[in-house]
């Protein structure tokens, strides 16, 4: 009887310890590349593309990444098996402007603005995401602003509007917005 009680107590203790360890595990810090990849993927849920700009049935939803192979790599593992609006997701490594034509989202990391300058996309319905002042100055739509341990968002509404995209109000709520009066 006493051994049983002791055994039960030990099991309970183990359970409590295991349960307590779970949140710690969940709070494992992401690398910036990973965070960037997750955010890029998440945009798919909060942006509406014109019907013509969406991929055909059976075609993948394309997220383009200029240059930065680390982000592309992280993104590939994030989107594996996931879908956006019913479409599978393909990560496109963009080295040339033409390769960006069929993407729905395009990430232009700092230093790679020359590969696809945002304003050169001629108001195509592609959500451009970047990190630099230059990106923003050249008509980029969503900019990541690293802040301590996290990323803030700044959305330039004018280019978004021009491209015919609509950004969900929830996303706008948590982001800093410019223009769009």
């Amino acid at each position: 009887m006493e051994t049983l009680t002791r055994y039960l107590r030990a099991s309970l203790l183990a359970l409590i310890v295991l349960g307590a360890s779970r949140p710690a595990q969940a709070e494992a810090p992401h690398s910036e590349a990973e965070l960037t990849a997750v955010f890029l993927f998440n945009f798919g849920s909060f942006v509406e593309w014109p019907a013509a700009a969406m991929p055909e049935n059976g075609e993948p939803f394309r997220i383009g990444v200029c240059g930065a192979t680390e982000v592309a790599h992280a993104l590939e593992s994030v989107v594996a098996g996931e879908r956006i609006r019913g479409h599978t997701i393909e990560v496109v490594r963009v080295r040339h402007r033409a390769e960006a034509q069929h993407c729905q989202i395009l990430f232009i990391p700092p230093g790679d603005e020359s590969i696809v300058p945002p304003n050169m996309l001629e108001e195509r319905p592609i959500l451009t995401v970047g990190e630099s002042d230059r990106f923003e100055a050249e008509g980029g739509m969503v900019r990541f602003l690293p802040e301590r341990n996290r990323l803030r968002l700044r959305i330039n509404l004018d280019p978004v509007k021009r491209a015919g995209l609509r950004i969900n109000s929830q996303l706008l709520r948590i982001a800093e917005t410019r223009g769009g009066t």
Partner: protein
Amino acid sequence: MMRRRFQSLPIASKLRVVITAACVIVIFLTGLALMVAETLILRNRMVAALDARANVVSANAAAAVMFHSPHDAEEILRAGGTDEGVVAATIFDEHGAEFARYLATPAEPPIAPPGSPHQHVFTVNDVTVWTPMQTADHRAIGTLAVRRTLGTLYERLAIFGGVTVAVTLAAGALAWVLSHFLQRIFSAPVLTLARAAESVTGSRDFSARVPVAGTDELAQLAHAFNIMLGAVQASHAETKVLYAQLEAHARQLETRVQERTAELQAAYRELEAFSYSVSHDLRSPLRSINGFTEALLEDGENRLSTDSVQHARRVIAAVGRMNRLIDGLLDFSRLSKRELRAETIDLHALARDVVAELSADTARRNVEVSVAALSPCFGDPTLIRQVLVNLVSNAFKYSRERDPALISISEELIDGTGRRAYVVRDNGAGFDMQHAGRLFQVFERLHDARQFEGTGIGLATSKRIVERHGGRIWAEATPGKGAAFFFTLALPDTTAPALPVAALRAG
């Protein structure tokens, strides 16, 4: 106690109590059932409403979660928390770690991580709902938990309970009032019936009738009661007539008996007066006969022949016998007139006295007389003495031819009865038991007067005396071997306590 009190209530009150109680119980139970149903429905609605609320908040907070903005998420939660009754809301990320939290007051305990993706938990004071947060593509991004108090539920239940109690009381009161009218309809005929029955049993007035109204069971009962009353009335009248007839008959019989008794008594008195006067009147001619015969003997002693003297002496002896006979008859007839003067008698002493007196006449004979111890008796000493004299002198007389003559006076147990009788025995002539019945009748003699002289009155007189003392006298005998005369005396002793016969017998 309650039950007994209820049973002693009149039917009218019983009906009222039952109707009111049934009404109150039914309404109260209905209210209770509705309350339980209402509680279940309210709980489900609360969960559904909270779910809906959580879905809105979770849609609003999805972006904040997905773009790792706990600050924004908390703001959204706070905005959602202004909703009535919400006291806490928490967002957990897909790993179950707390992402953002809102507590209405610092004292509010935080919400626990989700046990399962979709659940709700009730406590006494609140309910918590966990709802999965999803993207449009059904990708799980976390869990939203919202907790609200059950204040509104309890408020509504309180109102409901109050209304139930109020309605129950009102219905009870209404039932009490209505049952008063109902009671009139149902119990009034019953009460009339009961009163009628009571008046019938009380006054024995079988002509009373119960008014019959309508055709329901109560009316049938009243009708049946009336029929029964009619039957009782008829049979009662019949009984009365029969009783009167019987009474008349009895009276007639009684008067007849009285008449007959009076006649008999008159006849008896006449007879006694006659026999007394006859006996008395017989004495004077006898005295004349005796006197003149003696004168004849004296005067003509020398002139009369020897035969004539002999005849005259016989006349005188016959006159003596006749005198004794008349004395006996007078004694016998006086017995019925005489009053008993009862006292306790030492029967033993009396018996010895009688034996001594009678032995004097038989001094020449060889007689052995024994007197055993005799218990005292209660009676008239003169009469009892006469009984003993009669029996003992009979014993001397009929044992005349024995040598020695044996006479004993004793007390014996009577066979089979446990009672005692006094016995006078002798070893004399005895008699044939066939004639025992005639023994105690006046002038009945079993023996020839020439053999044993006597009047034939002694035993009849003894019988009369013993019977006047409530006793019995009888005899047993064998011809030539002797006789035994038994008698008992049963006069209640008014001077000494009665013998405990039962105790003696048991002993």
